[in-house]
């Protein structure tokens, strides 16, 4: 029988009976690795990335490949693993707080990398990079939040800030606060963003109405709402492209 409270598949089962592996610890101890051994990271799949992350930070009593496989089995992806809630992570790693810290760090580093890439260009010129950033930021979030990207006249990103955090399917957002912050930052363009934790990015009537209210308030101050993007899991919908405002 599966452990109490875990009827679904055999989540975490693979964590038990793990074998110690000697090699990473020994090479670390000797402080030596052949030069050619440093990998080209971009071609790695989730399991390899996770295993390497574990190998770099965890103690030798953990087999990186086994743990990576167990974590992916349980959470579904690398992104979901490193964004899992602390209680879930604690359970899945057997209470290994060092691993939890480095998952959180990797997640944050990933977001900052994507944001830095976004900031190199005109935000609207590179839609793929915008969407990559928004996915990294929001695809795994379980609670709805509204964010605003504030842009200058060159459409460069000035700031990305959370303007509201709601519950699983609703978030309040106030046009007055959005516009106030835009004026503070001297932003002239806005991109509204929010996530649907259900994974379905289809806009609701309220989403569309909210866009209109903010656009109307902003336009009085000479600020343009350039788009409203909804992130549902890794799928995105642009209200601009859909012609919804």
């Amino acid at each position, binding site marked *: *029988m599966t452990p109490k*409270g*875990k*009827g*679904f598949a055999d989540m975490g089962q693979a964590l038990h009976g793990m074998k110690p592996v000697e090699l990473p610890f020994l090479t*670390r101890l000797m*402080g*030596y*690795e052949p*030069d050619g*051994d*440093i990998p080209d*990271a*971009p071609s*790695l799949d989730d399991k390899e*990335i996770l295993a390497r*992350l574990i190998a*770099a*930070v965890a103690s030798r009593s953990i087999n990186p490949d086994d743990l990576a496989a167990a974590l992916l089995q349980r959470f*579904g*992806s*690398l*992104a979901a693993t*490193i964004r899992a*809630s602390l*209680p879930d992570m604690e359970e899945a790693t057997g209470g290994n*707080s060092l691993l939890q*810290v*480095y998952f*959180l*760090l*990797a*997640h*944050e*580093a*990933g*977001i*900052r*990398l*994507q944001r*830095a*890439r976004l900031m190199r260009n005109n935000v609207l010129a590179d839609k793929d990079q915008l*969407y*990559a*950033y928004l*996915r*990294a930021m929001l*695809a*795994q979030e*379980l609670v709805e939040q509204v964010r605003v990207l504030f842009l200058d006249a060159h459409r460069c990103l000035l700031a990305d800030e959370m303007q509201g955090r709601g*519950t*699983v*399917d609703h978030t309040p957002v106030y046009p007055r606060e959005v516009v106030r912050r835009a004026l503070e930052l001297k932003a002239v363009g806005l991109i509204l963003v929010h996530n649907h*934790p*259900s*994974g*379905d990015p289809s806009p609701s009537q309220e989403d569309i109405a909210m866009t209109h209210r903010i656009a109307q308030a902003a336009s009085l101050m000479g600020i343009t709402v350039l788009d409203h993007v909804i992130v549902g*899991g*890794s*799928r995105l919908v642009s209200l601009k492209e859909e012609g919804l405002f």
Partner: protein
Amino acid sequence: MDGPFAGEKAGTPCEKAAGAADGPAFASTGPKGHRQRMRQRVLKRGADSLADYEILEMLLFPGVPRRDTKPQAKALINHFGSLAAVLEAPAESLKKQGVGPLSTRLLTLMPAVADSMAKPEEQVRVVLGSWDALLQYCDVHYARLPAGQMRVLFLDSRNQLLADEQVPDEAETSASRPAASKAQTAKAMEEALRSAVAFLLQRALAVNASAVITIRLTPVTLEPDRQMAADTPFVQMLLKEAPLFSVDVHDHLVLKKGEWRSFRLVGQEW
């Protein structure tokens, strides 16, 4: 006096509940204590409050056993221009700047993490949006579970399955207990139901569910209709409490080897 205020040093119960440390506030002021505090900070407040150099400083910990890594972190950011530039630097350039092999491995892994977080790939979740899907799910997953227990399926607003768990035994333990008096039994029943409903809703909040379906696996000795009648007080209490937490109760099912009853279809309360 032996009470919560006896020993000042031990801290009040409230301080303890708030996570005040048992030992001295600064167990060690050396680099080891610093690392420990940084890790605690990340666990407590998340990593988004860290400055860029602090992220890098911490990523250098595993490869640099004892030394303070802050100067190296700041030097690297100065050399390459930004945290992102350090993380995207080729292994060769990092090595030239004195970054060790393990640290190089960890730093150069970050672009791969970033790419993976951004990739457009659908996570596969079970969707239980129809009777067929639901009954089929039960067939597959509950066939070998011991009869008698109650399960709960936690769903999001698109009826995707978030978790499937056992509800701790509520009514039958208290019902089968020899009765002291009628009033006492009724009170104990009520308490048991309350705690089962509270447990279920607590889990619903924890997994961010917007709806639940409860399912009773009927023991062979009981008729499905009798079982439904026995479960009714539980379901009614759940129906009363769940709306306060914005949790929809889709249905309560009673299953018995191919037979099933639905509270919704029997339907007084809906």
